Structures are given as C-alpha cells and as structure tokens.
C-alpha cells in the first residue's frame, strides 16, 4: 500500500473510532468509576471522594424508588415479550399474501415511525380523566396516567401499540427469506399449519428470533420517553432510566449515586450486548 493510502485509511478509521470512543465508551467507563464515589458536582475533580460500594448499598437498602423501578422494568420486559409474540403472530398471518395485506401491514407499522414521546401525547386523548375517550365509553372516572394503580399499564399499552409493528416487520422480512421447499416438505409429511410453523419455520428463523429478543430487551431497558412525558417517572412509573435522569437534571446533583444507578443499567445491558454480538459476529464471519 502507498504511504498516502495508508494515511487515508488511518484517517478513515481514526475519526469514527474517536467519535465512538470519546462519546460512548469513555462516558460508559466514567459512569462505572463515578459509581464508587461521592461528588456533588461543585468544585473540581479533586473534590471527588472515594466511598467504595456505599452507593450500591444505599441503592439496595434505603433508596425507596429502586425496587419498584426494577419491578416496573421487569413488568415492561415481560409485557413487551407478549407484544413481540403478537407481532410475530400478525406477521405469520400477513405473510400468506392475502388480499389487503399491504393495508394491514401499513396500519400496524404506522405508529413505529412516531416518537415514543408523541405516542404519549396521542394516547392522552384516550386516557384523560375528564375528556378522555376511555372514561367516556366506560363511564369510569379514572385518571389513567395519574393513578399509580393504573398508569404503568396505561403507558405500557401505548408502548405496545408502538412496538408491535416493528417486530412484525422484522418477522415479515425473515419469513420472506424462508425456503418455500421447507413448507412443501412439511406439507408432504402431513404436518398442519401450526405444526409446520413451530417445528419447521420457527427454528429456521433463529437469527431473527435472537434479534427480536435483543430488541425487546433494549426497548424495555431504554424505555423512557413516554414515562418522562407523563410524570417524569414518579408515582407508579418509577423506572431505572428515569431515576438516573432525576439524579442529575434539575436541582439534584448526586453524581456518584446517579452513576451507580447508571452502572446497574450498563451491567444489565451487557448481557444482551453479548448475545447480540455473538449472533451478528457469527454471521459476519
């Protein structure tokens, strides 16, 4: 390779790499380190105190919103898995090339292009106490976004509305690439449609299944916008992502404590990062 080419290649790698290292990996590592410290954020870096695992001890024992937040994240995860299964189900139905499948596909897909924050606003017209459609139809007087008994589910329904179309699309793409001979062979063997799907098609879709698994995990962990729009993650809507944000934005500036919460998020996410990298790297090789 010529020297000039070597320089060009170097620059083409260095700039994007610097971007990702400085703006993603350095902050990630810093979050982990800051999690072991106490720092009010006033004064220089020399005012940082090392306090070992105290932040973690406090989070697990005397920080009231933590366990509800973890529970809510888990509920959202389970719920989104059900929604993903629903998305797959719709994809299987639409994949039969019915008349009108284009319309069904577009209808389910439309919410995916909207932001999750906007989804929160659109559903407010349904959930509002006085003027919302849901109370008008049912005759109830529930504040769906405000009442801690219901708001998690109200917000989850809106999130599911937005999530299903994306999963459907991923499966539609996967189903299109399934070799038709497989179906024919299964039909010759006398398998019915349900058997064919679960015993022949579903296993072939393994890469898509893993991607959907990861996408669903990430969506549940990153779940934030709609919760922040509704009530900034309080009163029934505590989630870990919102707790991190609450500890840094606004008057509160508990940097060490917030970083420990952020590190918990990083640890959870590392599980599916590893799964995802395994899948795609195997394909890339």
């Amino acid at each position, binding site marked *: 390779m010529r020297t000039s080419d070597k320089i*060009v290649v170097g620059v083409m790698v260095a700039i994007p790499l610097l971007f990702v290292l400085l703006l993603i990996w350095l902050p990630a590592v810093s979050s982990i380190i800051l999690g072991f410290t106490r720092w009010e954020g006033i004064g220089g870096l020399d005012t940082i105190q090392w306090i070992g695992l105290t932040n973690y001890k406090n989070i697990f024992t005397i920080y009231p919103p933590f366990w509800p937040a973890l529970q809510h994240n888990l509920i959202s995860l389970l719920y989104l898995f059900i929604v993903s299964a629903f998305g797959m189900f719709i994809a299987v139905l639409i994949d039969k090339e019915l008349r009108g499948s284009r319309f069904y596909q577009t209808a389910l897909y439309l919410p995916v292009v909207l932001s999750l*924050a906007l989804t929160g606003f659109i559903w407010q017209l349904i959930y509002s106490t006085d003027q919302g459609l849901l109370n*008008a139809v049912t005759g109830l007087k529930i504040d769906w976004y405000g009442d801690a008994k219901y708001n998690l589910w109200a917000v989850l329904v809106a999130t599911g509305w937005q999530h299903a179309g994306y999963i459907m699309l*991923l499966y539609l793409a996967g189903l299109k690439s399934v070799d038709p001979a497989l179906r024919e062979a299964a039909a010759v063997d006398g398998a019915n449609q349900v058997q064919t799907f679960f015993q022949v098609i579903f296993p072939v879709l393994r890469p898509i299944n893993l991607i959907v698994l990861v996408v669903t995990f990430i969506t549940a962990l990153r779940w934030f916008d709609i919760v922040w729009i509704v009530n900034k993650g309080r009163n029934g809507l505590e989630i870990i992502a919102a707790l991190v944000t609450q500890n840094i934005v606004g008057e509160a500036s508990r940097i060490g404590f917030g970083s420990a919460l*952020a590190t918990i998020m990083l640890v959870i996410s590392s599980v599916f*990062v590893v799964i995802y990298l395994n899948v795609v790297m195997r394909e890339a090789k």
Partner: protein
Amino acid sequence: MLLHVFLIIISLSWLFPIGWALFNSFRDYNFTAANGYFSFGGFTLDNYANAWARGDFTRTFLNSVIITVPAVLLTLVLASAMAFVLARFSFKLNLTLLGVFLAANLLPAQALLIPIYRAYRAIPLPEWISDSGTMLNSYLGLILINSAFQLGFCTFVLSNYMKALPHELYESAEVDGASVWRQYWQITMPLCRPALAALATLQVTWIYNEFFWATVLLQSGDKFPVTSSLNNLKGQFFVDYNLLSAGSILVALPPIIVFFVLQKQFVSGLTLGATKG
C-alpha cells in the same frame, strides 16, 4: 374470511388513536366541551393556527432541521468511511472494531448521561458556535451525540452491504492505480446508493424523533426541536385536547410523509440490520 375480519379489526384499532387525534384536531374546544367528544360537528381549522403559534412551530421545526440534517450527514460519512475500511481490507482487529461500534449502539443512553452532561458543561465553545458558551445547550453537542449513537448501526449495515459487492471491482481499480480514496468515494459509494438512501430515511426519522438527549442537553426553550417542545401546548392548569391533537398531528406529519413517500427505503433500512441483504 374469519382471518380477514380479525386482521381488519386489529388494523382499525391500530389506526384508531391517530384517527381520533386527527378527528378532534379539527374540532372547536367550546363545541366538544359542551357536547362531549362523542359528538359530531364544531369543525374548525383554528386549532392548527393556535397550535402553530403556541408551540412556536416555526422555530422548533427549524431547530429540528438544524439538528437532524447535519447529524444524518455526519453519521453517514463517518459510518461509510469506517465500513469501507472494514469491508475492503482484512486486519486482525476487524471483528473487534466492528464489535466496538456495534455494542456502542446498544448501550442505554441514560447510562452515559452523567459524564456526557458534565463534560459538555465543562467544554467551552466560541460564541459563534454556541451562544451558551459551552457544549451544553448547543446544537453542536446534540448533533455529535446523536451521530455517535447511530454510528454503530450504520457502520454495521454498510459494511455488510459493501462486503457483498463483487471483489473484482477493486482488483481492476488496483490495476488502474486508483487510490484508496478514489476506490471509496468514486467506486464504492455510488454502488451503495440504495443502502445509503435506506439508512438516511431511517436516520432522519430517528433523529427527528429523538427525545432524551434533546430534553437533557438543551435547557433553554429556544433550541428545542419539535419532539421535545410538545409540552408547550400543555397549559399550566388545564389542557385543551383539541389543541394538543392538532400539535400532535403537526409533529407526526413529517415522519408519516417520509414513511409513505419512501416506504421501500424505510422498510429495507430496518430489515437490513436484522437480515443479510
């Protein structure tokens, strides 16, 4: 037949929330207040004019453009350069590098918030780039973090796409003595147009919809993009839902138009990442 009935019910219930917002965005607040939302009539266009003014949409749409366009261009240029090197040459570290980019794409943004926030607050910028004097509360800061977050996905998709191009292309280019830059810019990039178009469509929508970073990194209202400025339409003491509907439709319109006009690119962009080809 049963299948169609089922799918039609599902589709209509999926369209319903948007339809309901659209319907009520054209109705007068006093009419729906008097007759309830279960009524017909009171049609007006005033909500749109009011929402446009109250939500300061002229400014916020401009802000969205100022943030989205450079962020998408920057992402695609950097990602394509990285992807080209990964696809064209084989180093020992190829897979590791790809992993570094791809994993970065999956980290939850909130986990990076505190260091980013503090660093942005501490980095000074000249007045002509940012009137706040720091990276915090600047367009530039938001553009950079959005690009960094999208780089992994785009690099991955583009490098897969480039690997599928016929290798003879480069062999003949080498014979002709074409430099690496020429191979990238004049040979590879034009062939990647479909993938670039798909990614651009997707990225425009994603960055336009981005909410978290805009909310936490921009503090003064005058720089907020459209998505994070809907709160302006909520009054302090009561909410005019017809106004809010009109505002929501205005915000939803750009991605919906992009989706209908560029549906093919949009869908292929999403599935490019998940399946090969």
